[in-house]
């Protein structure tokens, strides 16, 4: 399975964010690593996030829409093989929490993103819904 380069870039961005998080649990990191491997991100590409971080531009999403974009891309990555497993859902929850969404809203947001990703809703439409419910 090969992931399109934009999604791959977003995955690596998320991986870098997780790695940089002092409070990240290694089990969550291992889950993310495994998801990357399964979705076709090579080991070398993941290694470069660590070994050559200066050669890759990482951005940390600041605004709500930027955060939603990252999460939505991850949801699309998760759907890349046509199925969603528990780990993928857990990682998405983890990022939602890290991005500062209220804990009680996290499962709803995750469900919303996964459903829209499955339907193939455009980012613009997702942003529109999010903007209306800030």
């Amino acid at each position, binding site marked *: 399975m090969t992931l399109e380069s934009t999604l791959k870039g977003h995955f690596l961005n998320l991986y870098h964010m997780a*790695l*940089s998080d*002092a409070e*990240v649990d*290694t*089990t969550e*990191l*291992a889950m993310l*690593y*495994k998801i990357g*491997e399964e979705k076709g991100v090579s*080991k070398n590409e*993941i*290694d470069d*996030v*660590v*070994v*050559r*971080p*200066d*050669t890759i531009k990482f951005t940390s999403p600041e605004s*709500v829409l930027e*955060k*939603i974009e990252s999460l939505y891309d991850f949801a699309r990555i998760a759907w890349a093989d046509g199925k969603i497993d528990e780990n993928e859902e857990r990682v998405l929850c983890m990022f939602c929490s890290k*991005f*500062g*969404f*209220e804990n009680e*809203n996290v499962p*709803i*947001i995750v*469900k*919303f993103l996964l*459903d829209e990703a499955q339907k193939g809703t455009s980012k613009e439409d997702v942003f529109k*819904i*999010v903007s*209306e*419910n*800030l």
Partner: protein
Amino acid sequence: MGLSQIKNGIFSVKPLKDKKGEVKTTPKPSEKEKITYSDYGFLQAGKLGGTFPGLKVCLQKLYHDFNQDIRNDNVKQDELKKPYKIKIEEYKGDNERIEKKIAKVKTDYLVRAIKKIELLKEELSHIKKNPQEITGDDAGKASFLIGGIILLFLTIYLFVFYSSASYSAFFKEFSLNEIGVANSIFDAQALSKALTDGVTELTLILTIPFVFLGLGYLIHKFQEQKGFIKYIKITILILITFIFDSILAFEITEKIYNIKKDNSFQDMDDYTYSFAFQSTNFWLIIFAGFIVYLIWGFVFDFVMESYAKTDKIKMAIQEKEKQIKDAEAEHKDLEEQVDKMTHTIDANNTEISKLSSILESSIIPREFEHDIFSFLTGWMSWMKQSGRSHTDLDEADRITREFVEATINRFEFKNTN
């Protein structure tokens, strides 16, 4: 669940924490003291089930945190980066020196080499157009060829004449109908008759012409010598040849005279030298042999001289061509030197760029390798306790070494501090 659950405010985020108060990746010193890397490895292996992706993630996390830690230590980083900066300066200095050398070669040596080649080519062309400047006169190839052709036919003539005359003098029995001038000197069947008489006889008459040719050659060789004595030697040679020729002529004319005497009804005196000098046949043989021999000697001398002249031109051209070849080789060598130096500059620039990119990132000191392997020790202890196979342990070791290679050993300089 659909969009129905999406309600206003669901995407609101918690207020941002004060970043100043946030503790990022650097572990607290107290935490470091509490737990060793080996213990940490053991604990993490247990937590992640000793899996290979788990190990890889832990290594990455350790590296990332260590990197964050060391990145902020400017004093340490300056110290670690110092050898790289020195090396970059060395490469830059080398490049400056090489560039100066290239400029010197291009503007000086190469220009001189090109001029030298052009000059030599002009000289070569001049020699070809004006060969008389080398030989001293206009005698050229044509003289040599004409002389050579004449010499060839004269040689054939002398060969035929002397072989036939020798046969007549030494072996032929004359009869009355063979006492004419032509018959007495020339015998068209001399060779076949000599062969009939015996191989030795044939050999003798075949080799006798070479005695005369040899005498002619000696005249030429003596002429090459310096001093007055050469004229005495030449005179003696000519006299010897004349005497030899005279003996042959005397022998032939005597045989003819004796035939006449034997068949005469009158008394005739014995044949003497005075009779010979008065005999037309005697002088005919001398002229047909000895004079032609002298002509052969002069032509031979002329041909050899022409050959020496053409050879002199040939040698001069060959020498000039060799000089041009040497100059071209020197020119090529200089160009190769420039290529080689340019290649060195390119290689140095690659190294500079490689070192610069290392300087842009943070440099990991060697001590991290120790921490990583301590972590691996703990990780492998857990694997062993869990009854993992040797293959799994080897694989864990391989993954770690590969990671160390990619992270620490990628730096050209090994940091020992």
